């Protein structure tokens, strides 16, 4: 699959409403609700954000409290600065506007309006402070060609690719795969569970890539509580950890694939030497 093909797919399928995420003709999902759909899975596992996952799940369901959800969203220290960056670079005042939220989790044209220097400066500000570097030691530079979609954070900032490359396998590949936003095709829906076919990440000793397909069981709700998304076999969906987050339009699928491939290429590329270091040498 090439980037040109993906771009063509996006132009040929511009349906999906202003957010481009849900299926055509569906009402637009408010940005805070969209944020909650993607943020809930790792929050429920205790990996990020405030310690009240039930509030997020309820907010992602019917009758959300958008103001309360906005306050919760700002406490996701991993995602929130990316939303602020994307909004600022696009002249949008609200980081929780649906287009901004979609840009970060799935990808859309807004990510291309974040310049490489702006992205590099943001990552540097966040992850190269001494206190933070102790924790995020793999982040030495913004990878060239990366875009501020969630997979950049997973592939470039997380310690797991560094651990993989150092020979420490363990759960690293699984964490990288489950935490990126992946796409899949629904094969069956049974109550709270959805059977989905998707592609998993592979690792050849140095490079991350998309690998073989697998069939998995994912959640679309918990005891009947969850995002109000009617799923049917044949739907294309986005997944985060073991949850289905949303149904994807063809355009949204194309953006998610494109951003994922661009960020894989960015972290797989050989590191660019620091000019200052080269001069000293």
């Amino acid at each position, binding site marked *: 699959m090439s980037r040109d093909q993906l771009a063509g797919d996006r132009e040929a399928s511009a349906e999906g409403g202003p957010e481009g995420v849900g299926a055509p003709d569906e009402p637009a999902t408010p940005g805070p609700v969209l944020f909650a759909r993607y943020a809930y899975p790792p929050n429920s596992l205790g990996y990020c954000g405030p310690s009240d996952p039930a509030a997020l799940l309820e907010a992602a369901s019917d009758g959300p409290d958008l103001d309360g959800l906005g306050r919760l969203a700002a406490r996701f220290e991993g*995602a929130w600065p990316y939303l602020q960056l994307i909004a600022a670079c696009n002249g949008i005042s609200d980081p929780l506007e649906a287009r901004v939220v979609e840009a970060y989790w799935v990808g859309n044209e807004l990510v291309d309006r974040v310049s490489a220097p702006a992205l590099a400066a943001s990552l540097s500000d966040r992850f190269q402070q001494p206190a933070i570097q*102790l924790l995020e030691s793999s982040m030495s530079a913004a990878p060239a060609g990366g875009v501020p979609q969630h997979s950049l954070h997973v592939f470039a900032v997380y310690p*797991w690719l560094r651990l993989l490359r150092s020979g420490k396998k363990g759960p690293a590949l699984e964490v990288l795969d489950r935490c990126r936003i992946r796409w899949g095709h629904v094969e069956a829906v049974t109550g709270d569970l959805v059977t989905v076919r998707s592609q998993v990440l592979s690792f050849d000793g140095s490079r991350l890539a998309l690998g073989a397909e697998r069939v998995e069981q994912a959640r679309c709700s918990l005891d009947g509580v969850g995002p109000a998304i009617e799923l049917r076999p044949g739907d294309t969906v986005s997944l985060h950890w073991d949850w289905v987050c949303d149904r994807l339009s063809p355009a949204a699928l194309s953006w998610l694939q494109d951003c994922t491939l661009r960020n894989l290429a960015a972290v797989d590329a050989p590191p660019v030497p620091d000019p200052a270091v080269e001069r000293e040498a």
Partner: protein
Amino acid sequence: MCVSRLHRVLRTAGPGSVDVENIDGKVHRVSLLTLDGPAPEPGEWLVVHSGYAIDRVDAAEAEAVAAELRLSAGT
């Protein structure tokens, strides 16, 4: 979207895992599958990501970082 977090070991929680406390006092159980060396003792500081302890941190350095993070969070 997750970030690595600093945690202090509270107790062993069975084979291959420990209960830890983050700088806000919240307790989690984390796996030691990716941590080199002997099992950490109560009071040791760890870097934790996505439910796994991935590194150890010197106590003095950890206390300094925790203080800085608490200060920047306004807590």
